[in-house]
């Protein structure tokens, strides 16, 4: 009797969420009534003080038909609407969309450059508050164009642009380390943190005149606009201040300890005009702040482990240990240059602490930080940064020495 009651009560409790969300009452969402938004863009509207929201919505019928390869229709639909706030603009979308747009599956939040330069603060709260938006969305800034334009990019191998961009971005972040992949959660933390300015991913448009480029013309008419996901967008406060290129971005990632893999090209020792490439296997970093006489300083230690992936001239590591060590040194030098490139642009061009040195100082010296905090803008460019790079080459692929080709001199 009692056991049966227990079971009945548990079942009843468990039923609440199920009943309400599935067969539900008020917030019912039938699959036929909704459209999944894959990316959402934020721009200034045409009128002053208006915000334009662009949603990239998947066409479910086009996707499912696409599996059999019959439909030539684009599998997505892009639609923009405006409002005085993000939420109003978002809701106004319903005037144009016959299906209810849902943000649960969205992958990207894209800001147009113009909008980002004027400050994104007023647009952020919506994404924070709205329960449909996942904090794992990637924050992107479109370089040189509006967010609504960048969303038109398309990619080969993936029918949905958002999936394509995500695929490229994942590779760029993990195997090249030349882009940052910043989730909404990380972005908000950086916006809020003291002594840590925000960065976001950078996206560019690649226009391809259809007549000149036949690559995109198989089946789907053409891909005239593609995208490029490299580099990073640097913010100061909530305003975009500039862009990091690939080298600078990897410099930033070295400091943050986020380099996963990548290729480092060095000049081959003991040879002229020949190069060697090193594949990074692992890397980590520590940032140690110090304060002496009230002046802050930072010591960056980077440790990188790589494999010799390729040499352009014959090379046998067994013959000369010096060459092997020299390669390690050159690798360290390249890394140091990349870090310095990032440091220089952040310090002197942006004056924006995208590395979070201030936050590190706050963690270690909370009392001193309260004094430094207000003048961090003046202190940051003067900050003494010491870089120590420790590299080691572990192995050299399947071959110990490189192939010795017999070459005949001409003439």
């Amino acid at each position, binding site marked *: 009797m*009692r056991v049966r*009651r*227990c079971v009945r*009560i*548990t079942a*009843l*409790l*468990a039923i*609440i*969420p199920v009943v*309400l*969300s599935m067969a*539900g*009452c*008020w*917030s019912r969402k039938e699959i036929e009534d909704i459209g999944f938004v894959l990316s959402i863009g934020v721009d200034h509207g045409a009128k002053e003080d208006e915000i334009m929201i662009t949603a990239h919505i998947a066409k479910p019928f086009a996707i499912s038909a696409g599996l059999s390869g019959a439909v030539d229709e684009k599998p997505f639909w892009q639609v923009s609407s405006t409002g005085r706030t993000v939420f109003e603009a978002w809701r106004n979308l319903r005037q144009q969309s016959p299906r209810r747009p849902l943000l649960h599956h969205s992958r990207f939040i894209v800001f147009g450059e113009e909008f980002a330069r004027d400050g994104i603060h007023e647009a952020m709260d919506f994404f*924070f508050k709205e*329960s449909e938006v*996942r*904090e*794992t969305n990637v924050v992107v800034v479109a370089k040189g164009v509006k967010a609504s334009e960048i969303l038109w990019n398309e990619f080969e191998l993936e029918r949905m642009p958002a999936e394509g961009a995500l695929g490229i971005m994942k590779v760029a972040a993990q195997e090249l380390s030349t882009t940052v992949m910043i*989730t909404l*959660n*990380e972005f*908000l*933390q950086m916006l*809020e*943190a003291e002594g840590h300015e925000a960065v976001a991913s950078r996206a560019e448009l690649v226009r391809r005149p259809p007549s000149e480029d036949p690559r995109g013309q198989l089946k789907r008419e053409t891909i005239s606009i593609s995208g490029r996901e490299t580099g990073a967008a640097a913010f100061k406060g909530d305003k975009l201040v500039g862009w990091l290129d690939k080298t600078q971005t990897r410099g930033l990632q070295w400091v943050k300890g986020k380099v996963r893999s990548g290729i480092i090209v060095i000049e081959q020792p003991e040879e002229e005009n020949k190069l060697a490439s090193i594949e990074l296997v692992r890397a980590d970093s520590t940032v140690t702040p110090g304060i002496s006489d009230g002046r802050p300083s930072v010591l960056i230690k980077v440790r990188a482990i790589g494999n010799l992936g390729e040499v352009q001239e014959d090379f046998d590591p067994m013959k000369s240990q010096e060459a092997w060590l020299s390669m390690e040194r050159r690798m360290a030098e390249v890394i140091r240059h990349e870090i310095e490139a990032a440091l220089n642009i952040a310090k002197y061009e942006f004056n924006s602490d995208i590395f979070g040195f201030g936050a*590190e100082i*706050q*963690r*270690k010296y*909370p*009392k001193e930080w309260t004094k430094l905090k207000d003048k961090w803008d003046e202190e940051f460019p003067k900050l003494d940064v010491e870089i120590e790079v420790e590299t080691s080459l572990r192995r050299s692929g399947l071959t110990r020495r490189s192939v010795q080709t017999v070459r005949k001199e001409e003439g």
Partner: protein
Amino acid sequence: MTVLEGGKISGRQFMSVLVVLRIVPLTLVFSLINSIAHVQDTWITVIIGTVIAIPIAVLITKLSLRFPGKTIIEYSQSLLGPVMGKLLGLLILWCFLCTSIDITRGLGEAYVIAIMPETPILVFMSMLIFISCYAARSGLEVICRLGEDVFYIVVFVLLLTYVLPYTAMRFENLRPILAWGASNLVPPVIANLGYYSQFLIIGMLVPYLNKPEDATRYAVYAVLISGALMVLAAVALVAVFGTTASSWTLPLFSLARMISLGDFFERIEAGVMAAWTVSTGIKLALFLWAASVAVAQLFNLKAFRHLLYPLGTITVAASLFFFESMVELEDYLAKAGAMVSILVAGVTLLLLYAALGIRMAIHRRKGGAG
């Protein structure tokens, strides 16, 4: 007087329901992290609060053990006399009802905020109240047996929620430690102790334990387990969200939303929602049961079961007009509400122990004279 409640509960069930009743506010609004200015210290405040809560739990348990078979409502009447005892009983009853009202509203708000913003909150609250009244009507034994199962489910879901967002965790977010002085620690400790003051309900449970001698041990275990779960929650939240951890209305729900392993292991938040529902259901059942038993004992009634549905209707109605908004509820839970609970628990313990001391002194003198 006839026995109102014939059920017997085991020590482990006793511990489970105590943990569940402390964990409910953690899974919904984690008031500790919402009330702290600098989130890095949250886990320390949890430890402080938990350490202070141990003697509170022990004092309540020990007191109840002196009056075997009697609930706190009954023995406060025999200690303080019928008038003062009844007044104190009413105060305790008020606290039980308030807790029921808070969590009913809390769960309703959580549902509305998290998934179904257009659904009237009354729908969730009345369904919950109905089920909880039904459970409470079945008696303490059923509640506690369910409580034990719910305890395992909730602990499992919580641990999963703490561990799985590991990709997003950055433990340097936890530094600096104790950089803002003691004033940063006070509000969350108050909030924490406010919730632990709900352990006053131990006074209603001890008489029904099948082995009362284990009560103290299990009460301490309950404090320690719930404290450990909260420390882990604080660490996980700050590691994942950094300083933004204090801005979430439903921190643990948002934490669960961070979980994405591959593309298939997502939507763990459904698990968190299930944990809310079952644990709140059990806690509500327990407090409604305690309230109805308290009413029955205050008015010398022979039965308590038929009081549950009326009390349920009062709870639903009250939870609608007590708080105007979620913001007000959060503020109340972390500040004024917590303070009231601490004061009531403190006053109750002080009065009862003082009366006990005086009685024993008189008794000894009489014994010495005779």
